[in-house]
C-alpha cells in the first residue's frame, strides 16, 4: 500500500493505492496523524484500492471521528463497488459522504 498527500482546489487529498488491511493499516493511520492539516476539508482518494478489510474500514471511521473533531469535511473518493457493498451491509457507509471522483466534490467545479 502506498499513501501520498496531494491537493485539489481547497481539499487536502490523501491518495491511497493498494490493499488496506491489518498489515498496512498502521501506515495509513500514521500518515493521517502526521500529515493532516487543520482548516482544510479532507478527501480520501480510494480509486486504486481494490480491497479493504475490517481493520481498514475501522480506520476510515477513526479518520471520520478525527475530521469531525477538527471541524472539517471528509469525503471518500472512488470507493470500489465491492467495498461499498461491504460498507453498506456492515453499517459503515452511513457515516461517510462518497463521491465518484475529485471533480464531483462540492465547490470543486
Amino acid at each position, binding site marked *: 500500500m502506498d499513501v501520498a498527500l496531494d491537493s485539489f482546489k481547497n481539499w487536502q487529498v490523501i491518495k491511497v493505492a493498494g490493499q488496506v*488491511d*491489518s*498489515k498496512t493499516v498502521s501506515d495509513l493511520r500514521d500518515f493521517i496523524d502526521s500529515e493532516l492539516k487543520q482548516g482544510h476539508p479532507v478527501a480520501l482518494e480510494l480509486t486504486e484500492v481494490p480491497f479493504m*478489510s*475490517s*481493520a481498514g*474500514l*475501522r480506520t476510515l*471511521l477513526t479518520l471520520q471521528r478525527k475530521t469531525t473533531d477538527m471541524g472539517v469535511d471528509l469525503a471518500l473518493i472512488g470507493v470500489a463497488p465491492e467495498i461499498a*457493498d*461491504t460498507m*453498506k*451491509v*456492515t*453499517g*459503515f457507509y452511513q*457515516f461517510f459522504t462518497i463521491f465518484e471522483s475529485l471533480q464531483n466534490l462540492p465547490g470543486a467545479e
Partner: protein
Amino acid sequence: MELERIDNIPTDTIDGYRVRPGKPLPFGVSSVPGGLNFSVYTSAGTSCTLVLYSRTEESPLAEIRVPDYYRIGDVYSIVVYDLDYEDLEYGFKIDGPHEPEQGHRFDRTNVLMDPYARVISGRDEWGIEPNWDRSYQYRSRVAFDDFDWEGDSPLEIDDADLVIYELHVRSFTRNENSGVKFKGTYAGIVEKIPYLKALGINAVELMPVFEFDEFENSRMHPDTGEKLYNYWGYSTVAFFAPKAGFAASGKFGMQVDEFKQLVKELHKEGIEVILDVVFNHTAEGNERGPSISFKGLDNKIYYMLTPEGYYFNFSGTGNTLNCNNPVVRNLVLDCLRYWCAEYHIDGFRFDLASILGRDPWGAPLSNPPLLESLAFDPILSSCKLIAEAWDAGGLYQVGTFPAYGRWSEWNGKYRDTARRYLKGDDDQLGEMAQRVQGSPDLYQWNGRSPATSINFITCHDGFTLADLVSFNGKHNEANGENNCDGGDDNLSWNCGAEGWTEDQGIKSLRMKQSMNALTILLTSRGTPMLLMGDEFGRSQHGNNNAYCIDSPVSWVDWSLLESNHLLYDFTKNLVGFRHQHKCLRINRFDDPGSKHFPSCSFHGTNPWQVNWSSESKQLGWLMSCDDDSTSLMDAVYVASNMAHYATWFELPSLPTEYVWKLCFNTGDIQSPFQQSPAPYLESGILVGDRSVLIFTASPRET
C-alpha cells in the same frame, strides 16, 4: 492523567512469541494493551497448548504450551503480544485421559475451538463445500466488538403489545424474486424492513443464527440427487458467534458488524429482535460425532452421560448439554448476557427448553438453577425469555414450566385447539374459550399473565398456514427419509382435495380458512406469533419438516405477495386492528373490564348464552376495557361459526351511545375487511359457513 499499567510487559518468550501470565476472566479472548488475553477452562485436562494460525495458512504459526504456573484453579490463561488481530485464528490443544467409560475424551493432538469464540471461520460463505482434509474445521477468531450503536438500546416493548414474526434468515430473502440485493442474508432482512413495518409486526424471531454447519450430516437425496443440508441450524457449533454464512460480508469475516447493523436498523423502526437459541445440545453429536470443542475440553462437565460414559439423548440429536452443571450454567448465562449487551438482543426463545430444567442425570428439577439464574439476571432483566416448554425426552411443561414470573411459553395447546376448532371438530368450544382469553387454565392458577402465552397456529415446525388448509397429511419425500420424518399430528384439513387444485370452491374455502385462522389468532389475548410468508399464503408443498431443504420449497416466494394480495392486506389490517384495540391486549386475568362489559365474555348465537355442547361450532367473544384518557369504551366482538352452514347470531346489545361497526368478515371473500365501516344497525347478522366476523363498538355520531 492516563493510567499506565506496570504489569503490561512480557515475562517469557515461547515459540518465538512474547507472553506473560494472563487473567482467568473473562473466558475466551480479550484485548489488553499490546496483546490478547486467552483464557480457557478445563477441569480434567492436564495441560494446555495455545495454537495460533494465520487466516490464510493451513498449518499453525505457533504452538504455545501454556506454562503450568499460568494456571489458576482449572483455568489456563496467557497474554500473547504483537499479534495481528485480524489475521489471527486460534484454538487449544488439551491433554488429559482418554477414558470414554469414565467420561473423558481428551486427545492432545486435536485442535479445539474456543467455546467463547465470538467469530468463527471455516464456513464463511453459505453452501461452499468445506475442505474436509482440514483437521481444525471451525477456527476461532477475534471480534472487534466496537460497533457504533449511536444511542440504540433494546426496545423493551411490553410483552402484551408484541406481534412476533418468525423467520429463517436465509429463507426470507433467498428467492430470486425477493427483490433484494443481498439475498439470503442479514443485510437482506434490512432491505425488507419497510415490508415488515408495513405489515405491522413489532418483533422478528430469528431461527438459529449461532454459528452452525450447514454441512453437518449433509447428504444426497437418494432419489433426486438433491443436496440436503442442516438447513435450519438447530445444532450449535459456537454459541457466541453469529453464523457467517448468513452474512453478505461473511467472506470478509464481518458478520459481527452486519448482524449488529441488522439489529440497529430493526430497532430504528420499532421492531425487536428475538433469537431462537439452542442450548439443549451441540453439533458434537454422540460418541461417533466430531470433537469440536466441549468434548475435548471437558466432556464430563459439558454433557449428560450415562454411567457407562455414553451420551444421554433428551434432545433427539445425539447429546444433551449438561445445563445445570454450575460451569455450563455460567456459560449459558455469559452467552445470553453477551448477546443482550453486545448485540442489543431483545429476547430469546429457547429450543426444547424443558431440557434446561433437567438435572445432570436427566431428572426434571422442581427449581432448576439455570432457569432461575436467567430469570433473575441483572443484564437480562428486561429481555423476553420464551420457552419451548417440552423436549424430545417426553417432558411436556406447557402451563407448568418453571417461570419465576419471567418466562413465557410457546403455547402448543393454543395451536392444537385452534387447529381443531378451525376444521370444525366436535368438543372444542370450551377449550377454545380458554385459549382466546390467554389460557387462564394454564397460567392463572400460578399467578402468570395472558402474555405468558405465545399464541401461534403455525411455526417453522409443521405446516405453513397455506399447507394447513391444503393437506391432510405430510408430504416430506423431498427430505429423503421416505416420508417418515416430521409430525403426523397436524390437525389439518385440505378443504376437499389434497394439495394443488383448480377447483375454485376449494380454493376460496382455503383462503377463507386462512383468514379465519389469522382472525382468531389476532383477536386472542396473549402474544401472537406469525410464521414468515403466512400473510400471503406461503406453501412448502405439504412438507411439514423442511429442516434440510435449501431450495424454493423452503424459500419465501415473494410472487405470492402479488397473487395473494388480498390475504396480505387482510393480515396487515388485522395486525393494525390489534394494535388499535387495547382490549385485545389486556394482560391481566382479573381485569375489571369496562363500565359496560366484563373484560372478556363469551357468547353464542344468542348473546351471553353459549351452547357448550359437544357438536356446537359457534362461539363469540367480547373483549372490553375503558380508555382512561378519553373515557370511551373499547369493545371488540368476534363471532365465529365453524359449522359448514350459515348461522344467525344476535349481537350483544350496546349502551345507547355506541353502535357496532363490522370491520372484518371472512365470509365476504371479495371484501373481507372494511377500512371505514358504516354503523351496523341490525340486531343480528347471518354469519356465513366457516366464517369469522369482527365488530367494534364505536361512539354513536349525533
